[in-house]
């Protein structure tokens, strides 16, 4: 049952060199640069996103993800979910409005996999970038690089993915859309894909021995042609390619993976399945994991399992 959690709203990513990172996210992915804050963090967004920002880059000694935030429908829902999280036993911290420029109060909580998530109800709405709200044209002409539409989801690696999946479902109303299950290991869940919307997934979890790992942040493109064009840009700019262009079995999205200059993985993708509340969970068998992850190669690439920040 949905609980007023609408969509992924932001992700704060640690990078080792902020200027290099801004060039990558702005000029290569094609996100819109919306400025810096007093701490020197850089704010960006996909051009179709109505809120002021969705990606925050913070310079640090090690890459990875600081937190992922979800927008809820109202301040009342924010307060209710905060109480629910406290009752569930989460460590909850309230971050005052304005700590992120243009963002209202955030409710940050810890999870069994060691990832920090946040909820918030308000963020300055600056509208889609480069098109008007009335009679909007199809797209703005002066987009850069891959012309990423929006921040779409994150894939996170951690140990107790059952715990985090349960928290997201029972407290925040997420729905499991797809799972990878190892039947030979007593129905062990190896991966869980969860949606709070009707997308194929809004956040995904993969089992891994260490806590709090970041596998990738993903951005949506319009077409398969745009995914191929992204692959061209990756070659033109000698960006570290991971794998693709290809299709995932899980969610069936068409995709390419690559790395930012600090080694954080990015994905751009298009297409994919959808999730209505009455949809049964799609199950992939762990022995078909190769095909589940890379539908064409059908072979597990070791880097997919081991390379994380």
């Amino acid at each position: 049952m949905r609980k007023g959690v609408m969509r992924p709203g932001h992700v704060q990513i640690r990078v080792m060199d902020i200027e290099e990172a801004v060039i990558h996210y702005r000029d290569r992915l094609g996100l819109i640069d919306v400025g810096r804050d007093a701490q020197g963090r850089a704010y960006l967004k996909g051009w179709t996103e109505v809120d002021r920002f969705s990606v925050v880059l913070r310079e640090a000694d090690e890459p990875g993800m600081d937190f992922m935030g979800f927008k809820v429908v109202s301040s009342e829902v924010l307060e209710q979910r905060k109480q629910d999280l406290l009752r569930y036993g989460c460590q909850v911290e309230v971050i005052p409005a304005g700590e992120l420029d243009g963002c209202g109060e955030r409710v940050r909580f810890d999870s069994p996999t060691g990832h920090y998530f946040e909820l918030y109800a308000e963020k300055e709405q600056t509208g889609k970038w480069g098109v008007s709200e009335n009679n909007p044209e199809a797209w703005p002409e002066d987009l850069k690089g891959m012309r990423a539409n929006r921040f779409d989801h994150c894939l996170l690696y951690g140990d107790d993915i059952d715990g985090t999946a349960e928290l997201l479902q029972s407290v925040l109303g997420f729905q499991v859309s797809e799972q990878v299950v190892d039947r030979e290991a007593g129905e062990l869940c190896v991966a869980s894909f969860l949606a709070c919307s009707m997308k194929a997934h809004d956040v995904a979890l993969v089992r891994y021995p260490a806590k709090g790992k970041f596998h990738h942040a993903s951005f949506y493109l319009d077409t398969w042609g745009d995914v191929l064009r992204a692959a061209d840009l990756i070659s033109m700019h000698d960006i570290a390619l991971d794998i693709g262009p290809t299709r995932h079995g899980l969610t069936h999205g068409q995709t390419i993976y690559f790395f930012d200059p600090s080694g954080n993985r990015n994905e751009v993708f298009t297409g994919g399945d959808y999730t209505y509340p009455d949809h049964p969970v799609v199950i992939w068998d762990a022995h078909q994991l190769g095909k589940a992850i890379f539908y064409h190669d059908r072979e597990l690439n070791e880097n997919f399992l081991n390379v994380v920040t």
Partner: protein
Amino acid sequence: MKFSVSLGDEGSSFHCGEQQNLLEGMQTFQVGVPLLKLIPVGCRGGGCGVCRIRILSGEFETKKMSRKHVSDQEQAEGVALACRVYPRSDLCIELLSSAENDNNHSERESL
């Protein structure tokens, strides 16, 4: 200017230009034969730690490396991430297991 990079006991080596990091040097060493896989290749950005090595001898420069995988003290002892190392002389290196990577620095960055 190209330098030779040799791996500890295994007797294997490759050449690496001074503008190249060790992984780039390794991957472009021999044209037309399968890429050398002496050092594991991951993110190529100094973030994931899979290319962790120890430099036993030689001069080099490094770009910023994730502190999760190379502490200050380790860096002083010659531990480095091959994708961030630029040779300034011939080098002798050894691989460090990725198991060691995980055990050493698994604590989470606090916010």
